[in-house]
């Protein structure tokens, strides 16, 4: 069979529109946007067009959009930058226990510096409630950072509602959301937030480009200083071709976002039906998860063995968690959600994109059935 790529939460194939924009930019617009001559002005024009076009997709003013290398940088910038800019006002931060490491690790550093962080645990089925967040707010809360969509389970958190609640209780707290798995797939919540992170390569753009939305007036100490690029928030000559590719990918995704989403939802249901017809499987994604993500476990087959077997058959997926024998840690997300160890060790994540087709999903269903038929008896006998 042909190979099928179902690991779109890790990264996505680059859309033809993005390839064309990058190619065109590399060939014709090599200038440095800061330069005063014609090539520089041309590059600055490409950057401006990209910023306006992306701002429209984000639903924010173009001047509040800052380009960077991707969501990891955006998350690091906003978390450490906002905390350091507002530390005189308070030193308490609210987040969840299921954030991406690019949010958790900067927060750990802040804890070492004396900040206090409250990690909220979402319910594996009901997710995170606005009330949960409200209860965690304190008078000295300066930052609330909650992801829009969880990368491992696809759980969607009501970040726009959370932001509105926070604003009514704790006016001065900055509300940020890591939107890397939601941007371009769900309606953008950025307009209701103070800060929102995104990466081009999760929506069929190139790696190495991303954007941080930061509401005008929110103070943030830059991570990278130097030539004062991006209004001083992020020094370093802009990745013009990457950004052009990002804008083209976002425009292509935004054009028919809703139709694409319902098509992806149909493919996901098709995949769930195929899995369920093969017998016991544990659903890890909550019922209202984003359509692009399906996390399941096939105990007692180790997740890594499933990934290898599917890879041999041409299907690229990923484990929720590395093999129990390897030195890699178990998934902190699935642990925080309270799943059993044996379930965590056998978790597999399928992640879809608008470039997948129903025919692909159908063939994956067949491969999956055959793989489970082969591996289940072995794993069960061995672990008897």
């Amino acid at each position, binding site marked *: 069979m042909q190979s099928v790529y179902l690991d779109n939460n890790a990264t996505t194939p680059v859309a033809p529109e993005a390839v064309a924009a990058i190619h065109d930019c590399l060939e014709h617009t090599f200038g440095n946007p800061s330069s005063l001559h014609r090539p520089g002005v041309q590059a600055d024009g490409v950057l401006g067009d990209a910023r306006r076009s992306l701002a429209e997709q984000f639903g924010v003013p173009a001047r509040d959009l800052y380009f960077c290398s991707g969501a990891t940088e955006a998350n690091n910038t906003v978390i450490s930058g906002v905390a350091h800019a507002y530390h005189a006002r308070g030193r308490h931060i609210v987040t969840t226990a299921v954030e991406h490491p690019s949010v958790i690790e900067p927060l750990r550093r802040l804890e070492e510096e004396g900040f206090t962080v409250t990690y909220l645990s979402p319910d594996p089925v009901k997710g995170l409630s606005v009330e949960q967040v409200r209860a965690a707010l304190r008078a000295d809360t300066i930052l609330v950072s909650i992801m829009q969509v969880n990368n491992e389970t696809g759980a969607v958190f009501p970040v726009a509602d959370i932001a509105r609640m926070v604003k009514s209780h704790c006016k001065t707290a900055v509300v940020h959301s890591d939107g890397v798995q939601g941007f371009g797939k769900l309606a953008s919540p950025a307009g209701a937030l103070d800060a929102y992170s995104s990466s081009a390569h999760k929506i069929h753009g190139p790696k190495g480009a991303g954007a941080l939305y930061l509401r005008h007036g929110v103070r943030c100490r830059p991570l990278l200083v130097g030539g004062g690029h991006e209004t001083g928030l992020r020094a370093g000559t802009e990745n013009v071709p990457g950004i052009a590719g990002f804008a083209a990918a976002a425009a292509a995704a935004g054009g028919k976002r809703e139709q694409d989403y319902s098509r992806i939802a149909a493919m996901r249901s098709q995949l769930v039906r195929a899995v369920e017809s093969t017998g016991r499987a544990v659903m890890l994604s909550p019922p209202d998860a984003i359509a692009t993500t399906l996390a399941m476990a096939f105990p007692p087959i*180790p997740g*890594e*063995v*499933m*990934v*290898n*077997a599917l*890879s*041999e058959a041409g299907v690229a997926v990923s484990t929720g968690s*590395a*093999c*129990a*024998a*390897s*030195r*890699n840690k178990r998934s902190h997300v699935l642990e925080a959600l309270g799943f059993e160890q044996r379930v965590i060790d056998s978790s597999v994540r399928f992640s879809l994109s608008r470039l997948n087709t129903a025919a692909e999903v159908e063939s994956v269903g067949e491969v999956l059935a055959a*793989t489970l038929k082969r*591996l289940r008896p*072995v*794993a069960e*006998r*061995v*672990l008897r």
Partner: protein
Amino acid sequence: MSEPSESAAAQNAPTEPLRRLVLVAFDEIALKRGQRGRFMQQLRTNIVAQLNCEAKRVVARHGRIEIELGELDANRLGASEEASERPEHDDDSSAAHSSQGSREDEQWRVWSASLRRVFGIKWYALAEAVPLNLEALESAVLRRARNAAAAGVRTFKLEHSRKNKEFPVDSMELNRRVGALVLERLPELRVDVHSPDLLIDVEIRHNEITVFAEKHPGAEGLPVGSTGSALTLLSGGIDSPVAAWYAMKRGLSMDYVHFHSPPYTGLKAEQKARDLVDALNRWSPQPGRLFLVPFARIQEEVADRAPAGYWTIIQRRFMQRIAGRIAEHHRLEALTVGDSIGQVASQTLSNMAAIDVATRHLVLRPLLGFDKDWIIRTAREIGTYEISIRPFEDCCVLFAPQKPAIRCEVVTVEQHEQQLDLEELVQAALEGVQVVTVTGPGGVDRRDERRR
């Protein structure tokens, strides 16, 4: 500092064209009288292959191997990934001013990195060859001493070996005269006969004099290919690559077998085996082959039919049988494994004995005498440690029982194996073997040479 006499000694001497060469000394080879010629030829061939240079540049002469430095082929320079790695004390750049000189320096750096990995070499040094007269000798020694003094050296010692007994000045007299000259010209230096910063060696030969100041330690051992051939069972752990390295050090040429079991192990475990072979091939004149054996079915069958305590030993016996067949087919004389007694609970003598009887082949265990610390230190030095510790297991946790049997009787093991169609499983695995020629940077040419 510009006394006329110094200029005379340093400039009037016939230094143009300066001939520079690499002197290679061997150790054990010199001892083995009966085998000496063969070993030396093997070493010479290996040096040509590992330096990837023209054979005519490498000559066995005066109980040494000499390598002619010459114009560098830029394509071949790029072939060494350590081209930019400088030897620690590179005070050998006396002629670096001309472009010819700097090309030679570059070549010396590239070669030095490669020579360190040629087994059978005791030491090697960059030497200057000058005409057979005292003035030339004096100016060559002075050049060395001056460069070293500029680099901070404060004490020195001269050593002469006078192979040419016709040379009119005897060793004592040479030492006295040349030493005195150095002290006079470079007052910052002192003589220290016990632990000098700089030891300048002078060899008076029949047609020329060689002067060299720094002996770089070689890898020692015997030239690869001089004592036989073996097949290493490469697990992906820390030990087996080190075992292969020690076996190569004793002159064995090496091929490798790795048992992979997709889907229970992944592509990255296989890549790890390839990278280990690539790292080990840098110590060998010919790239060792990697035999990849599919092992999943055997693991499934063993897990299905034998008690969990015996899984490990029965799997190991299968590996030994299959490796034995591969060795037989390719005429490799022994198997090499990374066992060390008692390192893990199941590495007992009785288990090793039960594994060994699965094949007729001689099984080498070069690590038996080493502690884990030493093995790890060696792995770091030879460049396999960082690969071995990548977190991709060569055996899925599914087939690694919690409690393997500590002391297995062969009879009991054989009883459990009767539940399995041994021959059919071995044959099926052999039919699925892939042979990989791992060619890292610079490896392609070497493979071609082997074909010729």
